[in-house]
């Protein structure tokens, strides 16, 4: 079992509010990273999901829900959970993981909801002004409980 990275995009599509990559050695201690590299990866990943999602929805016709769940490539698989409120949870794993939707759902309902949504000291909208929307945002989830829970839950699955 191998999970490579975990990303959350907020409702201002393209704003990455959380990223955690386990394959980069230098980030192991910090938990989050703001490196330029990750920022670019986030944009690319977001773009890929966004495009495939629009296309698949168009193909399925008007009026029916058709959310994209996984995207497989030759080297990795992306697992995606899009909530009705516009949040995207994305996990990148190796090809052996057929379906991680239960993991994503747990991350959403047990970790994100409990440590971010129910925590009044943490914002739920990370864009503080209009200029920070549409992918221009830079604020991340910094909540200790959230970071610790993600680490505790996903850590054992990394390798």
């Amino acid at each position, binding site marked *: 079992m191998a999970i490579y990275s975990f990303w959350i995009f907020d409702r201002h*599509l*393209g704003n990455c509010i959380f990223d955690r990559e386990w394959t980069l050695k230098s980030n192991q201690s910090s938990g989050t990273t703001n490196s330029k590299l990750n920022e670019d990866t986030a944009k690319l990943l977001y773009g890929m999901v966004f495009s495939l999602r629009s296309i698949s929805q168009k193909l399925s016709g008007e009026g029916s829900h058709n959310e994209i769940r996984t995207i497989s490539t030759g080297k990795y698989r992306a697992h995606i959970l899009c909530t009705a409120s516009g949040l995207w949870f994305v996990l990148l794993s190796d090809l052996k993981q057929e379906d991680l939707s239960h993991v994503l759902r747990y991350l959403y309902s047990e970790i994100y909801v409990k440590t971010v949504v*129910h925590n009044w000291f943490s914002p739920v909208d990370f864009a503080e002004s209009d200029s920070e929307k549409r992918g221009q945002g830079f604020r991340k989830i910094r909540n200790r409980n959230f970071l610790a829970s993600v680490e505790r839950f996903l850590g054992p699955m990394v390798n």
Partner: protein
Amino acid sequence: MSANSASISASSAGPKKSLKTFGDDIWKNKTAKINAELFTLTYGSIVSQLCTDFERDFKKVNSQLYAMGYNIGVRLIEDFLARTALPRCDSLAQTSEVISKCAFKIFLNVTPQVGNWSNNKDAFSLFLDENPLSDFVELPMDAAKELWYSNILCGVLRGALEMVQMDCDVWFVNDVLRGGQSTEMRVKLNRIMKDEIPAGED
């Protein structure tokens, strides 16, 4: 995911009955519960404190309750979606059913009646036969004309619906506490907001 697909297929089969079972099931089996009276008392203490803070200017109290509700709504929607895994609704009719049979049921264990649809189907009313916020409450005379005691609910709905891209106005039309025949909340859909589109796509 199973809940997700179940609810989708159910909604096409006949949303009324199945949404009710769906909501009841979540309430019964997947919801931690707390004494409703503590909830009632806590809310009462909040309203009473606001009335003191605003020197019994009930218009201000109404809007403050609404603002509090909004803050709650934008968060509550995530909790709701996480628990139900429901997709966005196709129609306002479906939304009204989800609000009454799932949302109110899961959070407050009541199921308001939906009714009073406007002619062009862009507004409906929720009739609260039971309201856990206002059990045992009687308004003082000066408040009975202006205060919407449960106004926090309007804010909650407004905030929650906005997060699923529905721009709605929500307000109280009537309240038994003010001597009305029923407690009626009105929800009017102004427009469905477009999801933001990333830079370069438009």
